């Protein structure tokens, strides 16, 4: 099809705009990546844009050798794996129960569930609850409180309801109870929905930093994102000191070396984000599907 002249101009404008947008979205990440590979002392001279000027692995060596960061990474991995497994299993079992119309009191449970989406007690009562339960500074606080997700429950429930009824009936005739039907028939057939939801849960768990900031001060249990926040906080403080004319104590510590707080922060950040970026291209389609299932049917 031939395009008229104005149409062609419109097309060009659209392509230029979108390219610009993609560039603006991606560039800050790229710049951070470049800084993480640039010699810290060289970075502080400024002017690092598209390519490292003095390439080095040094920042990563320091970061990867740091015990706290390694520990935090392990905590985050453990939390993500255990938390995802727990959340998906619990939510799936719960949703199966809730998908059966004969369940006594189902309507009331559902109201109870949905109210929680719009309504909560606020941070302080929640904090005192966790405190009262003795969950402060435990691994449990990182995985248990958010395990039941109502959004995911709604998605699971919709999925279970759409399964052919004949499958479950025949299982029943063969002598399966609800447990048997769920674990042997329903769960194995729920692969796609489990995959989509697991990804969402895992990303949220990996990215969450606020829970640990509130409830964890044992350095052995701090996840990587919260550690990064601590590092970042320390940097902001020093920057403020500097802007007010004070001296930068961290800079003094690092003066003798080529590594700076900035280059270290960037390297830590990359280590923190890498797992997500690494799986992202493979699972993007699932994510999109998950959103659409959740928003159109939920």
């Amino acid at each position: 099809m031939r395009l008229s002249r104005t149409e062609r101009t419109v097309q060009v404008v659209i392509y230029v705009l979108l390219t610009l947008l993609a560039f603006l979205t991606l560039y800050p990440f790229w710049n951070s990546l470049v800084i993480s590979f640039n010699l810290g002392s060289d970075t502080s001279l400024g002017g690092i844009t598209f390519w490292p000027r003095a390439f080095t692995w040094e920042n990563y060596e320091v970061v990867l050798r740091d015990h706290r960061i390694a520990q935090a990474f392990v905590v985050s991995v453990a939390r993500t794996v255990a938390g995802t497994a727990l959340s998906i299993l619990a939510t799936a079992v719960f949703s199966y129960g809730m998908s059966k119309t004969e369940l006594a009191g189902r309507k009331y449970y559902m109201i109870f569930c949905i109210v929680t989406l719009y309504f909560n007690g606020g941070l302080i009562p929640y904090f005192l609850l966790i405190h009262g339960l003795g969950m402060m500074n435990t691994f449990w606080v990182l995985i248990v409180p958010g395990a039941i997700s109502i959004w995911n429950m709604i998605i699971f429930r919709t999925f279970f309801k759409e399964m052919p009824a004949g499958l479950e009936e025949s299982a029943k005739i063969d002598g399966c109870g609800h447990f048997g039907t769920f674990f042997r028939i329903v769960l194995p057939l729920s692969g796609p929905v489990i995959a989509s939801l697991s990804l969402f849960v895992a990303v949220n768990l990996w990215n969450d930093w606020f829970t640990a900031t509130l409830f964890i001060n044992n350095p052995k249990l701090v996840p990587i994102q919260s550690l990064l926040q601590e590092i970042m906080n320390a940097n902001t403080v020093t920057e403020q000191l500097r802007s007010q004319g004070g001296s930068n104590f961290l800079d003094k510590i690092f003066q003798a070396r080529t590594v700076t707080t900035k280059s270290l922060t960037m390297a830590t950040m990359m280590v923190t984000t890498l797992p997500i970026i690494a799986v992202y291209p493979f699972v993007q389609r699932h994510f999109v599907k998950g959103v659409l299932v959740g928003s159109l049917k939920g």
Partner: protein
Amino acid sequence: MYRKLRAQYQLLIMSIPFMAVLVLFSYVPLWGWIMAFQNYSLSHGITGSPFSGFNHFADLFRDDRFYLVLRNTLVMSGMSLATDFVGAIGLALLLNEVRLRFFKRTVQTITYIPHFVSWVVMANIVLGSLSPDGGIVNEVLMRLGIVHEPIMFMSKGSWFWAIHTLAGLWKELGWSTIIYLAVIAGLNAEMYEAAEVDGAGRLQKMWHISVPGLMPTAVLLLILATGNLINTGYESQFLLGNGLNIDYSQVLDLYALDYSFSIGDYSYGVAISVFKSAVSILLVLGVNQAARRLGGFKAF
């Protein structure tokens, strides 16, 4: 009754324990609201602290800082809501006009990425880019000769709202287009063909078919988002805010947190939460009414 319960004991086992967990973590904290009507102290607990009636709420409505923080909350969520709404629809329309599938998919993939990156990392990048100390934004501005001295972006309180809105847009813009793209894809292809026969150009088709086709979904999403106006997150404000811009960056949740933990006045902090929830309930119920009347749609 008993027989009915017995027949479904397996189903009950599959739902009751999880309901219990939900009640524990979502409803038990509501019990803590009593604190808002007490002079709560940690040592006495909820059962032992003396009651003070509505004192804390009276204080709240006399507190200038409270109004400041409320303003910040509403302005920032309003700005995010508006920019995200307009931006997502605009981007979806542009993406829809792209013929090259590879190009379209690449742009989508790239703009979705920030959604999956944590706020900690995003805030870190924002602060790094805006830093007066070799931050890329200042570098570019200086190289172009627009400014001669690096700008201290994060020290200028009044700039915080704009910075915060742009940061949020960067993170969520691409992701917000998903639903609009799905709606456009679902529009009747015959309408486009008919318009083409009638001699409509691409812009005309966009304006007369795609935009009206998006409107029902857009209005609905906008209405639902309005219900959450006071419930905006606090992560980004927490991470981007600092002592110099706190008059613009502090939102209700952070104010409550600050009051409770640094000053030790838990009751006042809870009073703020209670106020927030009350407004949020009114908004959600109001919005639900509006949505029902407009589109016969039930939000919940």
